[in-house]
């Protein structure tokens, strides 16, 4: 078994004539923090959406560990529209829904926070544990709320609460347990969204601009937080981020995307000194 957690091969995502992701190949290895950077509209979120089953890619394959996660090739009217050079290279179709992919161990956060905003912080985390439930609808309905009957369903429910509270403590959000998540401060919401993703018990965590809208101090705290959860939960992390101090301080490797195409990849130093990256992105990003 290789230690590659995620491998993307020639991934192309085309919306009609717009090629949002163009022949992207990349890898995330066990225990790594890998960053995906690039200017606005480069196709970063689209790449995430292909991994998590929100979009079906037009062409290419994605492996998760040694299994094909997603695969597609241009068919129907996409056959004519497809502009890439890899036509005919792939012939397999594997398609999974986002919930199946999460179940396999890939969890994500969203660029525009998507908490269950009228529910409490605790409920948000509880919901993310639901995918592992063993009791069926009847058992959970009849027994999980009755504390005076010792049943499997009740034990499971108690365990979910216990685990959710533990998790909130572990990420330092215990004081917000019963607060409505939509009314929490912005930075806290971002952190809660990460906690919620952790509750699904992932081995690969995808973070879409986790530091968006944060001030430098919050960003520093988040940087430590990402490293901390990575170690504690034995994760591999794949993140999209614009804050260069965050990216440069913790990424093992960096991929740079521009207009859907990979323009560079390598270690921090390699990317930082790459002229194409400086021209396309870093020069601009410093003041962004």
């Amino acid at each position, binding site marked *: 078994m290789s230690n590659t957690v995620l491998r993307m091969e020639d991934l192309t995502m085309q919306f009609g004539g717009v090629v949002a992701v163009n022949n992207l190949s990349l890898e995330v290895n066990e225990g790594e923090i890998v960053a995906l950077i690039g200017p606005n509209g480069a196709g970063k979120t689209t790449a995430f959406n292909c991994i*998590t089953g*929100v979009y079906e890619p037009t062409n290419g394959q994605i492996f998760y560990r040694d299994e094909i996660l997603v695969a597609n090739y241009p068919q129907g009217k996409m056959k004519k529209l497809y502009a890439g050079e890899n036509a005919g290279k792939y012939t397999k179709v594997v398609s999974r*829904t*986002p*919930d199946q992919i*999460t*179940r396999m161990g890939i*969890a*994500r956060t*969203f660029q525009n926070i*998507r*908490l*269950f*905003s*009228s*529910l*409490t912080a605790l*409920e948000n985390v*509880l*919901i*993310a*544990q*639901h*995918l592992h*439930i063993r*009791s069926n*609808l009847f058992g*959970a*309905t*009849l027994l*999980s*709320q009755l504390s005076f009957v010792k049943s499997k369903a009740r034990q*499971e*429910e108690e365990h*979910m609460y216990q685990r959710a509270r533990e998790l909130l403590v572990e990420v330092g959000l215990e*004081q917000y347990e*019963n*607060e*409505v998540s939509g009314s929490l401060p912005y930075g806290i919401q971002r952190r809660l969204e990460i906690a*919620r*993703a952790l*509750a*699904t018990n992932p081995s690969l965590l995808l973070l879409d601009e986790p530091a968006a809208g944060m001030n430098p101090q919050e960003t520093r705290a988040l940087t430590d937080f990402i490293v901390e959860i990575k170690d504690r939960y034995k994760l591999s992390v794949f993140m999209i981020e614009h804050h260069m101090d965050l990216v440069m301080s913790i990424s093992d490797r960096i991929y740079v995307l521009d207009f859907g195409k990979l323009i560079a990849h390598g270690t921090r130093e390699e990317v930082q000194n790459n002229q194409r990256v400086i021209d396309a992105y870093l020069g601009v990003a410093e003041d962004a």
Partner: protein
Amino acid sequence: MKQKRYLLYSLVLAALLLAALIAIDNSSLKSSMLSTILQKGAIYALVAVSLNLLNGFTGLFSLGQAGFMLLGAYTYAILTIPVEARSSVYQYFNGGLVQFSLPVVVGLIAAGLVAAFFAFLIGLPVLRLKSDYLAIATLGFAEIIRALIQWNTLGPITNGSNILRKFPTYSSLLFPFAVSAVCIGLVVLMIRSSYGRAFKSIREDEIAAEAMGINLAKHKMMAFCTSSFFAGVGGAMLAMFQQSVQAKYFTSAMTYEILLIVVIGGIGSVTGSIISSFLFVACSEWWLRFLDAQHYIGGVKVPLLRSGFRMVVFSIVIMVIVLFYRRGIMGTNEFSWGAIEKFIKAPFGRKAREEERKKVTTPHE
């Protein structure tokens, strides 16, 4: 400590209600308007809660509640009419095809199951699509099922467009309350379980729910079938209450009534739906009846009051609610003793209120 006190309050309230119901049941009030309102209110409360499970908790919009009630009512009636009464009920169809009769409780459960089964059939194709399609599909279903049941070819089973009667009904006012209480209790338990939380997450944000590993189609199906099950039971009870069933009364107007009850009570509040059911039934059957009759004050005819005016007033009330009180009576809150205590203390204890504000406010389920 607080929990225990609230439990005590609840028990006392339940006991008082029970005592009041028993008193009404054993007095001349039993055949009064009050008794009618209470029975119909209890039945509507169940149907409203079942719709709220869908609209308020899962974020799905169904317009088929009357159709599922119709299925429940017919299933119950068809399965429970005593064998010896069948020849007179099915007089145009040689006593009908069904020649057995089930006990009341079995009939009620069957009513729910048949409704849930049809929901399953509708849900299979529709729940995979965007949520809006469910409203259209269920509305269509309700219309089709009403026509289908009156179809003469099905007469040996459904009695065509003729009335179904002579099925067992209840004698005590407590019956609809007991059935509704048990069913609503089950819905509440479901809402508070992990599955209920999953339903709510779908209401909040489908994309995020799916990203958290929740199988949307499966959970929507669960909510839809459960909702329809209880609508079916509610329909069966409505049949018992009216002592007869005829398909033509289960129109989309009935669905709108129930939808209205849910909106008035607060989308996402079970206690809101219950309170609003009784209020709604009382208004439409009783308190606003006077609007339909002509009145004279000192020999002068009061203008506007005439048959049908009640519905005009009703519509205005609805418009006001939808425009200005979109959250209904309860919003998404539930009745809680904590809130009641706060409300009672409010004028007296400013200090208490300030303390309350300092504490992290705990939203009630």
